């Protein structure tokens, strides 16, 4: 890390304000209290901080495969995480806040027995709810639980007060119950094999405490409250994890923050549109690259299956069944996380490769069908002219099969364009991920959703039209002659 001169810290922009999010005035620029903490820590260590975007639910495996040096993104201190990772001293103390609908009579978690209660996946709140006799509903983004609660789809939401204060308590349909259901700490996650980094970060955190810089950052983000007091004494801080107090220490500053006028309405601006276009470009690039690999792979597999001996046929059939018969998501996980010890692929490479390997299986079947549809008489006619087996395929069978395959191939490319949204699980911010990040930031799913849909359509529709034109050009009956002259030296 020292050599690199960077402290690479992993987080998910989708977590939104106040953790780490994109500055709406300057899209592309990062803001958030964790951004400032990261910068301050890096300064202490004499390096620069570099943010690494990663799906929140995969931060731990991504840290383990070495994508970044630390996790700094509302990572709660739990015994499981302590066993799996090295954790730093706390940098923030949060309280679990229970939100209910404004008119509801619930006063504590105990009143919610048998009811549906929402929270975020992989959080301490989720662990608390799992231990209670109620029905837990898990979400991936922090705004959706409150939307569902307001709509009556759930009866309550249990989440960190940092999230509740900003996304839940400010909604007029909702009410946050006073007192914390439990308290816990946000800590940095560090790799098991980096004890020196753990020590260095703890020293840096202590120094930030002492100089009051941490407090200054937290005050700046309206996060400083009575809960933070014990954190000044790390020993006391370490003792407070777990479900405890129901005392109304819930702090004047927090109440003040919540009572302030809600943040100004955020609007979809030109900067956002630019970010969307960027996402669309990545989607298009990855789709095009992976399809450019999937197509020849499929053709090779189909050829192997139709025109070679038993081992080749078996190999091709096994490949197709294996990759078609298992989820693309699983293949991406295995490629990116599972094989990380064997081969360290970059997110982009893993994305392109994963999509190509998966779609290759589908293309193989498309081409197999198309090749089989060319009458055997055509191959005989080519062989009768003295063409060898390969030449007959190359000049007579393939060109005809390609035309037959084109509609299905176009179809698959459009499908791939949309399936490429799955690659956000391996940290690539493509179009759909960009949409979810912005939706959380703008507290609005409709505008970004429509924008996202429009961009997908803008990519797939011209493609379909273009494919239809090619198809018509290859049509034997209506083809203008100049169109296809695949013979060598014939240009």
């Amino acid at each position, binding site marked *: 890390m020292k050599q690199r001169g960077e402290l690479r810290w992993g987080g998910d922009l989708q977590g939104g304000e106040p953790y780490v999010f994109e500055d709406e005035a300057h899209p592309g620029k990062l803001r958030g209290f964790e951004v400032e903490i990261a910068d301050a820590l890096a300064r202490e260590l004499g390096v620069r901080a570099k943010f690494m975007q990663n799906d929140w639910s995969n931060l731990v495996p991504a840290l383990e495969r070495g994508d970044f040096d630390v996790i700094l993104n509302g990572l709660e201190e739990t015994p499981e995480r302590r066993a799996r990772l090295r954790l730093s001293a706390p940098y923030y103390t949060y309280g679990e806040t229970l939100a209910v609908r404004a008119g509801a009579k619930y006063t504590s978690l105990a009143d919610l027995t048998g009811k549906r209660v929402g929270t975020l996946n992989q959080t301490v709140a989720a662990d608390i709810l799992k231990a209670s006799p109620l029905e837990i509903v898990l979400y991936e983004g922090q705004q959706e639980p409150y939307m569902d609660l307001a709509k009556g789809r759930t009866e309550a939401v249990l989440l960190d007060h940092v999230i509740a204060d900003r996304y839940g308590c400010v909604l007029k349909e909702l009410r946050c119950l006073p007192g914390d259901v439990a308290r816990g700490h946000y800590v940095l996650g560090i790799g098991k094999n980096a004890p020196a980094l753990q020590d260095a970060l703890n020293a840096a955190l202590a120094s930030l405490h002492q100089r009051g810089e941490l407090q200054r950052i937290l005050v700046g983000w309206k996060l400083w409250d009575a809960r933070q007091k014990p954190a000044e004494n790390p020993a006391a801080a370490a003792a407070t994890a777990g479900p405890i107090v129901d005392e109304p220490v819930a702090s004047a500053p927090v109440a003040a923050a919540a009572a302030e006028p809600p943040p100004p309405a955020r609007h979809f601006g030109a900067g956002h549109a630019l970010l969307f276009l960027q996402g669309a470009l990545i989607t298009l690039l990855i789709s095009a690259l992976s399809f450019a690999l999937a197509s020849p792979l499929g053709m090779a597999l189909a050829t192997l299956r139709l025109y070679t001996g038993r081992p080749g046929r078996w190999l091709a059939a096994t490949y197709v069944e294996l990759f078609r018969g298992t989820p693309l998501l699983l293949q991406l996980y295995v490629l990116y996380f599972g094989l990380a010890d064997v081969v360290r692929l970059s997110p982009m490479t893993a994305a392109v490769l994963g999509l190509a390997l998966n779609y290759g299986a589908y293309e193989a079947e498309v081409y197999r069908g198309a090749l089989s549809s060319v*009458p055997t*008489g*055509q191959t*005989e*006619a*080519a*062989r*009768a*002219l*003295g*063409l*060898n*087996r390969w*030449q007959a395929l190359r*000049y*007579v069978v393939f*060109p*005809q099969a390609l*035309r037959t395959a084109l509609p299905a191939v176009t179809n698959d490319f459009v499908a791939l364009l949309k399936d490429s949204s799955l690659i956000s699980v391996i940290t690539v911010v493509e179009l759909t991920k960009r949409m979810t990040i912005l939706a959380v930031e703008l507290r609005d799913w409709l505008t970004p959703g429509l924008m996202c849909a429009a961009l997908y359509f803008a990519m797939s529709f011209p493609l379909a039209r273009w494919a239809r034109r090619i198809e018509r050009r*290859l049509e*034997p*009956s209506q*083809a203008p*002659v100049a169109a*296809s*002259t*695949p*013979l*060598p*030296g*014939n240009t």
Partner: protein
Amino acid sequence: MSSEPVLRLHGVAKRFGARTVLRGITAQVTSGAIVSLVGASGSGKTTLLRCLNGFESIDAGQIRIAGHLVEPGPSDAALTRLRADVGMVFQDYQLFPHLSVLDNLCLAPQVVRKLPRADAEKRARALLEQVGLGDRGKSRPSELSGGQKQRVALARALAQDVRLLLLDEPTSALDAGTRDEVVRILRELVKRAARPLTVVLVTHDLHLAETLSDEVWTLVDGSLASAGA
């Protein structure tokens, strides 16, 4: 017409599983001759024709064609070489629908003989003139009538200056007028071929066999019953 035999068969036999289709055929054809193979359905005439360019492998005997020797179990490469000297016209023509008429003719010369495009095209245009389709080079096969397709198929088979031309039921799908036209063109092609051209054709049409051929071979149950003019 040269008298040197261009095609010699000696004891050629062929089985499909337990069924014997050809029972030791021995015969020869002089260069430049037109031979018709006639016989009832299932008599083995089409199988014999397909043995002459290696589409069917023979189980016994040997075939000599213009310097090529065909024996049981030939290599793929040997057959590919043989086929460059033996043209074949299929009953249903099998023109390549994705290529223009001109490209149908140029494909084999360019790919097999490695002829430059200009040379292949020159030869192809001359052949199209000979079969009366000089103006259809740019057409697609699907734009042609049955008789025109037959003539393109003939021209394509001859584009490599083959020594032996095999025709499978060349007139079965044509009406009488078109048939006479094709016969006239075929005669013309044999007469004007650059190298002596020998023709073996399979037909049900006894009239065609008698008017067109120098020899008619009658196959009965896989044996040559008669061979003569």
